[in-house]
């Protein structure tokens, strides 16, 4: 409770400072709208459905791309952990491509797929896939050999060993890889939406982009806030509980 009050106080103060900066005319009102104006924009956008529509479109792209990245990344990670040949080839490629900022995929995606959903999907998948591959490989390689030995003596082998020992043992690594993959997917999708106008639907990134074109700062800031809130919510609703569970089970933190 005390923590909640402190946090509320902090964000309240931030809002106050913003309002004060607006009233003191530190910047031109065109560049810095008042918190109230942003709230009004968000209310209107929510009322006429623009916001919900854009959020759904963005989340759908994100989710599909993220899932494809996970479904492709996990087996590839297991493969690179299991066979050194795969590690030297796919693993090295994953390591290299992971260092490539995901915006860099946008020009290529545009030329290959045109202004289409496929281009969006491609950019998100490229943002997710490689970090999941690397995290999975690291996780599997870090499984203490004693777990395998203990499981082997109890008669575990083959698929059972992978499903019941290797995968759960590497879970902490895999989850942090999934989290990183999520962050990368989110970033790459926003980059793609800002750069690519496609007719199959306007996402949050596109709203951001048109906010700039129209010099509608309250729209730009409003959408940025929405993007931040979505990121926070996903973290709190999905990743935090999983991480807390892992920490409790493994005893890696008292949090």
């Amino acid at each position, binding site marked *: 409770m005390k923590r909640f009050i402190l946090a509320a106080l902090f964000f309240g103060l931030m809002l106050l400072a913003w309002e004060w900066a607006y009233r003191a005319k530190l910047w031109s009102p065109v560049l810095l709208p008042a918190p109230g104006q942003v709230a009004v924009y968000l209310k209107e956008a929510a009322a006429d459905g623009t916001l919900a529509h854009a959020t759904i479109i963005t989340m759908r792209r994100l989710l599909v791309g993220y899932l494809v990245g996970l479904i492709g990344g996990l087996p590839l990670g297991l493969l690179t952990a299991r066979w050194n040949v795969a590690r030297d080839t796919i693993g090295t490629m994953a390591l290299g491509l992971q260092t490539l900022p995901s915006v860099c995929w946008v020009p290529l995606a545009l030329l290959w797929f045109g202004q289409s959903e496929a281009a969006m999907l491609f950019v998100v998948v490229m943002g997710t896939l490689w970090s999941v591959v690397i995290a999975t490989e690291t996780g599997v390689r870090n499984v203490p050999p004693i777990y395998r030995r203990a499981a082997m*003596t*109890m008669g575990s082998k083959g698929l059972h060993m992978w499903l019941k020992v290797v995968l759960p043992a590497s879970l902490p690594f895999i989850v942090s890889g999934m989290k990183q993959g999520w962050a990368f997917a989110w970033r790459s999708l926003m980059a793609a939406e800002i750069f690519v106008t496609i007719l199959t639907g306007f996402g949050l990134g596109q709203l951001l982009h048109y906010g700039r074109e129209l010099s509608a700062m309250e729209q730009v800031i409003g959408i940025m806030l929405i993007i931040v809130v979505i990121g926070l919510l996903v973290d709190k609703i999905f990743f935090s509980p999983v991480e807390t569970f892992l920490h409790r089970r493994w*005893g890696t933190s008292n949090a």
Partner: protein
Amino acid sequence: MTRPHDYSTAKEELQPIAPSKLVIENVSKSFRASSGTVLALDRVSLNVAEGEFVCLVGASGCGKSTLLSIIAGLEKPDSGTVFADGKRVSGPGRERLVMFQEPALFPWLNVLSNVLFGLNLKHNLSRKDRLDVARYYLELVGLTRFERANTHELSGGMKQRVALARALAPNPRVLLMDEPFAALDALTRDQLYGDLQKIWQARRKTIVFVTHNVREAACLGDRVLLFSPHPGRIQEEFVIDLPRPRDINRIDLAEYANRISTALKDIGRTERKPALV
């Protein structure tokens, strides 16, 4: 669902089964180390009778743990053969379960699920029967209250008790123990000596127990085999003729321990020491 014809109940599963006879014939094993090839075991032969408790004692690096891994089937000998009940050992199998120096409990499972791990691989048991068997062994090691606990919440001694329950649960014929109590404090250890002897008598297992603690060996073993290092060989055999359960602090036990200890020191003296730089 129809029951497979080899279906068994928890009650049947908990019946003591005949312990194994182990025959180890001319087993050799060498390792490549940075300093050259090390002969860890040199034509070691050994028979362990059904239900016998044998302790392997020796300085570190004398090959006793390697021999245990070979009996377990976790490692392959360069030459020689291990037979369990007349059948050649070619890989790990749950008739021969291993307890390691580390508890090696799975952190992603709670205590009960850890004990269930080996049982889940026995497909002739129903879920309820597996639970009954797992709970029976948790009670045997005195941890019933902790079945829902996470492994990291247990003390070192409790962890080893869980590891013991996990190793006992699939009802193996042989228990292979690799310095299982070495990392525990003396008080916990003393308690576990009593528990292990009780369990061994109740469950009738063949046990091969590796240790470098001569007193521990004299307390637990029917026979104590002394290993000499470089190359690893069985140097001497001591038959411990004392009634059970034995208390680690018995006077006559100390005499056995002294004899083994003296023999161990003699090996240390006659062995050529590598020159110090």
